[in-house]
């Protein structure tokens, strides 16, 4: 048996619906036999009648409704059809969910699932990585699982958290990533993971780019360079300690992300290392993000727009040469 990243998300939701009667799922096209644009809820509506509900095309109201239900004791999971459409719900997420507990002491345990990131041919409005945008505002937990195991355990943990969680699942990983079985162990939310140890350079990254970084590390290993790869897992909170410990070992830092280049996760990580771990650095840190344009539709353009093993390798070589 094997389980994909997407199946892990479905299994996590099955588990949640089974184990916790407060859980329900709310989103467009998620119910019926259809089971969602990506089939992340396939079969769940039949298995759990009345708990997987189709909504109108109303992202703002979907999240607003989830907030109300959460304040009333439920544990709603909202599925956005694509992360990019959460721009419509941004006000509810930032200003209502994100401020609720702080203002009123009423916890707001919603989980918003954002099918994120680029895939071939998806273009400017079906490819965005929005974790940086949500992390900037207070009151939210923002997760970016990069593995099948994390997709599973982090979604279960997300729903258990008493605060609003933005769960960014990467669409490219849905089918491309497989594990042998669902995990029996987990790392807690808020901890980064050293995916591959090294001594020459730390690549700190998240989500789909973890795999590009691993490919580069593998390749460099043949040349005698040992690259350490850190998967942030959670970008808010961000596990500064694990990142600093890695930089302490390697003295060199490259941050890689699929999002737009101004600000976002890579800027935040570099800012933390520069301010809190300046003396650990033997060379200038570097970052690699997507280009500062909308995400192009055409595969030829798209593959140049985002970082990839080739561009990461080039950057890594530069840093190692310093």
């Amino acid at each position, binding site marked *: 048996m094997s389980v994909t990243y997407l199946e892990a998300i479905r299994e996590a939701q099955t588990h949640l619906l089974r184990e916790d009667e407060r859980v*329900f799922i709310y989103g467009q096209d998620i119910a019926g036999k259809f089971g969602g644009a990506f089939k992340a809820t396939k079969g769940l509506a039949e298995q759990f009648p*009345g708990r997987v509900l189709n*909504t*109108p095309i*109303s*992202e*703002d*109201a*979907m*999240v*607003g*409704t*989830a*907030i*109300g*239900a*959460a*304040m*009333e*004791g*439920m544990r*709603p999971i909202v599925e956005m059809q694509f992360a990019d459409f959460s721009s419509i719900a941004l*006000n*509810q997420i930032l*200003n*209502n969910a*994100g*401020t609720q*507990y*702080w*203002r*009123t*002491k*009423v*916890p707001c345990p919603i989980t918003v699932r954002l099918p994120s990131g680029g895939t071939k041919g998806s273009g400017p409005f079906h490819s965005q990585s929005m974790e940086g945008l949500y992390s900037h505002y*207070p*009151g*939210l*937990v923002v997760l970016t699982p990069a593995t099948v195991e994390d997709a599973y355990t982090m979604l279960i943990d997300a729903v258990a*958290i*008493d*605060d609003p969680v933005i769960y960014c699942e990467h669409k490219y990983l849905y089918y491309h990533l497989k594990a042998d079985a669902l995990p029996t162990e987990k790392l807690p*939310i*808020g901890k980064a993971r050293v995916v591959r140890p090294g001594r020459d350079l730390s690549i700190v990254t998240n989500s789909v780019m973890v795999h590009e970084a691993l490919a580069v590390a593998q390749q460099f290993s043949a040349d005698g360079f040992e690259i350490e790869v850190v998967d942030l897992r959670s970008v*808010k*909170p*961000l596990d*500064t300690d694990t990142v600093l410990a890695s930089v302490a070992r390697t003295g060199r830092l490259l941050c890689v992300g699929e999002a737009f280049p101004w600000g976002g996760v890579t800027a*935040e990580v570099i800012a*933390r290392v520069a*301010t*809190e771990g300046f003396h650990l650095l033997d060379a200038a840190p570097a970052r690699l993000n997507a280009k500062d344009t909308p995400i192009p539709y055409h595969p030829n353009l798209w593959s140049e727009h985002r970082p990839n093993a080739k561009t990461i390798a080039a950057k890594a070589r530069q840093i190692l040469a310093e």
Partner: protein
Amino acid sequence: MLQTAERGATRKSKAPPHERYLEAFRWMLLTRVLEEKLASLYRGGLITGGVYIGRGQEAVSAACGMFLQKGDVFAPLIRDQAGRSAFGEPLVDVARTYLGSRLGPMRGRDGNIHRGSVKTGQLAMISHLGAMIPVVVGKLLAKRMKGEKGFVGLTTIGEGGMQTGATHEGMNIAAVEHVPLVIVATNNHYAYSTPNDRQFACSDLVDRAKGYGYEGSSVDGTDLTQCLEVIGAAVRRARAGRPPQLVVASTLRLAGHGEHDDASYVTDDIRREAFAQDALQRTEQLIVEQELLNREGLQHMRAQIAAEVDEAVATAQQEDAPVGSEEDWCAISTRELVDHVN
């Protein structure tokens, strides 16, 4: 006045006053006295932030609070003091919030009109107009999922707020979920300084009801008897499982948008309209005419209210303000997940 309401009709109510007429009047009067006090504190520089009052809307608002029961959901907006009080908000909560007491329900974190509390069943609004509608829908949906019965939710909105996307999505999703929701929209003819003709172009906002599958009714917001009847009936219908209800009340905002605003943009013509009457005055007049209360009774009520308001204010004024250095700067409840950003 379901569907067939005579629009803008301002004939005197022929029907005998609603049985809870006097109670409503008391909430209206309380509101007027309290808000005048707040306005004067504001002018005296004793209140930080804005003061927004419901002058002219007390009848609508009182009716909004009076038909709700424990377990119902109420999401008031900025002109809903009467409804808040009627639904059980203690005066001291109001005073504490405006006067910045650390004991207020918002603990200084949010102010004035943004207050709410679990204890009183009143949601703390965010400013973005319309955003509270789906939140009420979610609470009602959850109550149904949990097996509760007989509850309703009521929220208010202005004719300006009705033009936000949030209001549209929230109204529609309520109908799709068939939750027992009542939306009381007051067209007080101004949204801040903006008159109706730059806000919407339909002839009557109650015409929106049908397009959402709501039952719609119109009400003269200056006529307490009508307000009690129409809003009472809408709440009853929602409670009985009818579709969501839209009640559109007509009034004039008899104050500035906030107390900082002299409302000089309000035209003389509009001040002469029937909907520009003062609901409180009309009510008091009817009470006197129909001898529901005599002069002493009225005077006694007034004195009692003034004393209650003064006491609440005095209490809040003696209390300490929040202290920055003691504040718990933590936006989430899961403390181990706090991000340690420097």
